[in-house]
């Protein structure tokens, strides 16, 4: 076996071990019934990765050298905790049963189901090929995520120079450390830093995303052909699942956003007692991956607050999602120290400079519109799909989250230090692409009864 094949084999073993432990551990937030098995598997992959990152952080904080024993032990502890503190059963899955009955009544659309399944499998294979063709190469992998991960792995510490603006400023000390910690942890488990084999984490996250999307849609009443079709479109969504974004935070963030959106909807509708646990976990995970995870958690808290039910319950749900996200931010701040948002000039929000803001906002909007031009056909198709659905609170909440993030991504370049056009052209395409899973769940969720 060649060196690269062996490295891929080792990394695949690490991914499978994390996924299995995560699957067992997610009984903390899911019942062990068939009803949620695929969705739980998707959560399990991400949970396994999160446990590895957390174990790496705890090793660094306590001075223990992160090694295979400590990391494997953390996975075992998490798996065992799933058995000891498993969640209670779902409420009777009326919607899901009804959907299956409808399918039987109509005769399942076998052709659609089979074609979608083939498309999903092909999409996963294509992304695996894109991700693993060469060592992860994007500039932001080299300058930020990979640099921090490799440094933490090699130094078994977070060196002070990474927080020094003069030396490590370009690596954005203000960004959360979840992804670099995951890179360092899997390298420790595999016994080597191989940035090509490590790319396998990304197709694993794509698989997790598709599993959660399918599982949530069918659990909330969508037919199997509809859920599979949504997954097929998402599996082929190359603007997110690209070689360029492999190694960056967008793919894990897109999964965290989907977890957060679906958990929020479940918690607001009271589908099961463990939905609040999932919401809290998703808030923490989203804010641990990227700063906008904290923003999304704040929007989710606002949606929860404006949702149905008693005020105390709504406030509790808002706190359940925003509290853990804030905790993740505080932990990150403790590790990295105070660091300003490097790309943004917040003084533009001061009264004295408000006059500068209007032309900057116009430039940011202009850049966003010009970037949307080449995607007009695809965007028109999405608009038709949206229009074909109908008002469904469970799904509409996900679209509200996606819309709030889109608005922020479009407007924020107005505050960019290097100018609105620069930030919009370098980031808008990929940041909005990360909203695809959330949007797919929202759009398909609105079509389930149509």
């Amino acid at each position, binding site marked *: 076996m060649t060196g690269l094949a062996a490295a891929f084999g080792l990394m695949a073993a690490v991914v499978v071990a994390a996924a299995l432990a995560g699957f067992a551990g997610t009984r903390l937030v899911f019942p062990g019934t068939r009803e949620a098995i695929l969705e739980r598997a998707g959560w399990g992959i991400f949970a396994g990765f999160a446990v590895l990152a957390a174990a790496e952080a705890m090793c660094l904080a306590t001075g223990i050298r992160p090694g295979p024993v400590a990391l494997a032990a953390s996975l075992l502890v998490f798996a065992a905790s799933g058995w000891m503190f498993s969640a209670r059963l779902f409420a009777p899955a009326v919607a899901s049963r009804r959907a299956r009955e409808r399918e039987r009544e109509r005769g399942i659309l076998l052709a659609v189901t089979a074609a979608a399944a083939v498309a999903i499998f092909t999409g996963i294979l294509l992304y695996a*090929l894109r991700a693993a063709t060469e060592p992860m190469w994007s500039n932001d992998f080299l300058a930020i995520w990979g640099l921090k991960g490799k440094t933490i792995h090699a130094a078994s510490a977070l060196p002070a120079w990474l927080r020094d603006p003069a030396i490590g400023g370009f690596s954005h000390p203000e960004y959360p450390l979840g992804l670099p910690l995951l890179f360092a942890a899997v390298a420790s488990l595999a016994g080597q830093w191989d940035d090509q084999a490590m790319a396998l984490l990304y197709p694993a996250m794509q698989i997790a995303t598709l599993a959660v999307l399918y599982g949530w849609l069918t659990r909330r009443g969508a037919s199997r052909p509809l859920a599979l079709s949504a997954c097929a479109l998402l599996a082929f969504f190359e603007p997110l699942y690209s070689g360029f974004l492999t190694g960056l935070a967008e793919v894990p963030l897109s999964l965290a956003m989907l977890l957060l959106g679906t958990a929020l909807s479940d918690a607001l509708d009271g589908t099961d007692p463990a939905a609040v646990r999932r919401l809290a976990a998703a808030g923490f995970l989203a804010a641990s991956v990227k700063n906008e995870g904290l923003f999304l958690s704040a929007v989710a808290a606002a949606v929860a607050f404006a949702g149905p039910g008693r005020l105390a319950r709504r406030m509790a749900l808002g706190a359940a999602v925003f509290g853990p996200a804030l905790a993740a931010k505080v932990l990150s701040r403790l590790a990295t120290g105070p660091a300003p948002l490097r790309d943004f000039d917040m003084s533009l929000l001061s009264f004295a400079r408000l006059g500068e803001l209007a032309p900057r906002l116009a430039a940011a909007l202009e850049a966003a519109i010009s970037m949307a031009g080449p995607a007009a056909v695809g965007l028109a198709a999405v608009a038709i799909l949206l229009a074909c659905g109908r008002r469904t609170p469970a799904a509409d909440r996900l679209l509200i989250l996606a819309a709030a993030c889109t608005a922020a991504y479009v407007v924020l370049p107005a505050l960019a230090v290097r100018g609105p056009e620069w930030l919009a052209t370098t980031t808008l395409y990929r940041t909005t692409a990360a909203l695809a899973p959330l949007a797919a769940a929202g759009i398909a969720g609105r079509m389930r009864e149509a």
Partner: protein
Amino acid sequence: MPPLRRMRIASAAAALVLFAVLASRTSPSEVSRRARFLERGASMDAAHRRLAGSATAFDRPFFVFLESARRARPASASGILLVMPDPSEPALHLAAYTWAPVPVRLSPAPLPPGWIAAVYGDGRPPGVRVLQALPGGALLAPAAP
């Protein structure tokens, strides 16, 4: 035609168009090119795979210099000052990643105590001694007082 049926046809058509748009972004030639590249890299070590990849495409000899410097760096050096004729952000980022966990600064900047300089190109700043000549440059340290 009933509105529900119309809606279904419209959504199916929109989904098919969207799928076609997305699928057209990956050409068969790209797939085969990637497969061949992956196969070629299978017998290479990590540094050669990096050298053949996209991250080094802007200046492949520069990566040869970086990798040589990484292997030749004295263990006692606590940081590296990168000196090059046309400094750029991609060059700094590639150097920082290649030399991690050792900190890197781009010249012009002072050489802190304990650091060495890696000079890409033929230039040699005054007041330094050559620690090791490298392909495309050299590792330098301050001359002894």
